[in-house]
């Protein structure tokens, strides 16, 4: 209980300091506006948009031998109900400084991007190195990107079939910025461009798992215990961290035909979250996995349509007889997005996860376990409305699974106070009929959050 109080007080203190900064900045802005009003008629205004201090800061940034940008942010979030498996009410309470350095030379481009944060919930300071990479063009037809990098491909909106680059679901579920859904990869990306086809190859010498829900901060359904669990059953999976042995390879072959983007994908590696279990050691595992898939995206009717599918070859359980390793799957996604009215956009998606060898799964499932469905259907709906010269953004993203009978909603309101300051509030809302379904397991994790950010 003391810890909760401490982290909440810590978060409040940080927010307080931020508000002071904000008020100070707002004063500077209004002083600036006043000064500009007095000088009206003289139309030769130059420089930044707000505040004398920010002008000075801007000219300081311009004197550096590299580009420096970033932001300072405070964010806090709370569970809206008690969770018997988590000691803390706070789900999020952090101050984060991001520094983004960039330098382009004739022969290469370098980027270093790192977050420095004090996490009031985990009660510790940490560094999250997001990017540290070089981009080279050894040949006219080839680019290389080496080092820590964020990688994304595929056509889904918050749904990934052929994108097996690491995700950070914890950040996603507690209300960090969308940027943090993607965790960095330590990889080599080679891209080849020809008139007929383009080719991307990503080699990750040492497995990069997801930042999965492990029981800290968020409770989840533990199939071994057969119940919801959290801080009382934190998952420490058997690591896959052998260089070159536990490596991953992903590729994409793609081209545009009449502005329709077509792609083929392949992946050889492991389930990115610990989906397997070793009953002897009592440890969660990352079983082996290969994926073959394809996608298409382009204009359909008045908007953009996409289809994507993938065959998940669960190499450690090809027969489907091992109850502790996920079966192979077929995954399918289809989506459509359209601007309904001025600054109002809607996107819908249908997603199917089909478990193969379902008979074998059912036969070998330990007695008393909750059986997953053979077909998992998910429908998503995204609504985005921009207001006040696009400075105010209202959005709602909803996942609904008619087969699992669970729902996950992400309402968010984001306001750009000035070109530098922004504030946002939102929620992560989970409902479910059952404890063991994908979103239903997080029903005690429903939370609201608030954030304020100053970018430079």
């Amino acid at each position: 209980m003391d810890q909760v109080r401490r982290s909440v007080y810590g978060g409040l203190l940080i927010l307080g300091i931020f508000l002071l900064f904000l008020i100070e900045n707002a004063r500077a802005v209004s002083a600036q506006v006043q000064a500009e009003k007095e000088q009206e008629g003289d139309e030769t205004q130059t420089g930044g948009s707000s505040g004398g201090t920010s002008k000075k800061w801007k000219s300081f940034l311009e004197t550096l031998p590299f580009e420096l940008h970033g932001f300072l942010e405070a964010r806090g979030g709370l569970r809206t109900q008690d969770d018997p498996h988590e000691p803390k009410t706070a789900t999020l309470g952090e101050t984060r400084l991001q520094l983004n350095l960039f330098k382009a030379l004739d022969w290469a481009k370098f980027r270093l991007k790192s977050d420095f944060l004090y996490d009031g919930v985990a009660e510790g300071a940490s560094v999250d190195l997001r990017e540290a990479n070089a981009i080279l063009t050894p040949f006219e037809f080839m680019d290389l990107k080496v080092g820590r990098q964020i990688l994304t491909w595929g056509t889904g909106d918050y749904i990934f079939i052929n994108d097996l680059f690491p995700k950070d679901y914890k950040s996603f579920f507690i209300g960090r910025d969308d940027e943090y859904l993607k965790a960095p990869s330590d990889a080599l990306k080679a891209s080849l461009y020809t008139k007929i086809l383009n080719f991307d190859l990503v080699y990750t010498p040492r497995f990069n798992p997801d930042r999965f829900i492990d029981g800290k901060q968020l409770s989840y359904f533990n199939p071994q215990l057969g119940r919801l669990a959290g801080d009382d059953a934190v998952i420490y999976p058997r690591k896959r961290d052998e260089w070159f042995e536990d490596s991953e390879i992903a590729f994409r072959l793609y081209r545009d035909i009449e502005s329709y983007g077509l792609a083929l994908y392949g992946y050889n590696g492991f389930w990115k979250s610990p989906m397997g279990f070793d009953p002897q050691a009592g440890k969660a595992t990352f079983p082996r996995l290969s994926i073959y898939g394809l996608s298409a995206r382009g204009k359909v009717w008045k908007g953009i349509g996409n289809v994507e599918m993938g065959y998940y070859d669960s190499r450690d359980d090809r027969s489907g007889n091992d109850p502790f390793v996920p079966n192979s799957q077929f995954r399918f996604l289809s989506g459509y997005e359209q601007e309904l009215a001025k600054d109002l956009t809607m996107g819908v998606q249908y997603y199917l996860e089909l478990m193969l060898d379902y008979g074998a799964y059912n036969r070998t499932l330990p007695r008393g376990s909750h059986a997953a469905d053979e077909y998992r259907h998910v429908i998503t709906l995204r609504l985005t409305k921009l207001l006040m010269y696009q400075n105010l953004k209202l959005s709602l993203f909803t996942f609904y699974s008619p087969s699992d009978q669970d729902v996950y909603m992400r309402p968010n309101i984001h306001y750009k106070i000035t070109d530098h300051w922004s504030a946002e509030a939102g929620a992560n809302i989970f409902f479910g009929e059952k404890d063991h379904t994908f979103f239903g397991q997080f029903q005690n994790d429903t939370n609201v959050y608030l954030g304020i950010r100053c970018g430079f």
Partner: protein
Amino acid sequence: MKALYWFSFVLTLALLATPAQGETQLPEPQKAGIEIMEKEQQAFYYPGKDMKAEIRMELITAAGEKRIRVLTMLRWNDPKSKDQKYFLYFREPSDVRGMTFMVWKYPLKESDRWIYVPAIDLVRRIAASDARSSFVGSDFTYEDVSGRNISADTHTLIREEKVGDRDCYLVESVPKQPIDYVKRISWINKITFLPLKEEYYDVQNQLARVFTADKIEEIAAPEGAGRKSFPTAVRRTMKNLKTGHRTEVTLTSVSYNVALQDNIFTERYLRNPPERWIK
């Protein structure tokens, strides 16, 4: 003999007066209107084989509060058609820095648009069927930025008039399909064919938005073996009279015919912006 003469005279008149079936002859002012607007589009949206410019937009509220957008724009004209490709690299504000935006524009059908978000390495297709949406929150719409299909409006040359000391054509353009304005009146310079002023009337037929080209410069560029200059509106303003909000655009480092290649406008450079062109 006389009767036959008169008969053929009347027949000729009748044939001249009746337009051929299917192609209704436009009245003179409308024909002139279309001709002028075609030249205007050429002068305003298509000059050169390609173009590169730094664009600074100031979005100013009625109370005087300002927001700034800074971007680099590359434009390429397809030599084989009226298609164009645009590449935008955003510099300011800091939350959009490094984002890139690509448009493949076709005169008669909906454009293709892509955006790249570097923080998550994400390439998205944009579903923007509404070309009347605001461009980056400014008073300019997508159509204002890249041009509106000429055949979507009926254009009529109303009269000739001076703007300052420059002779202009006054053309009224009425959208054939209902949109957020019912009428646009353009003052088009008779020599350069650049629009010096445009007035947009809303559905109540009240003046709602006004565009002005505030500063025009001659930009010299290589053309074939020699050089040519393109008059360019390097300062432009769009003002919303209903809200008092306005957007002032300044173009700097404008250059034409810089030998941009078609292959710049692809996913490769969307993800990895071409340093040579955006520096």
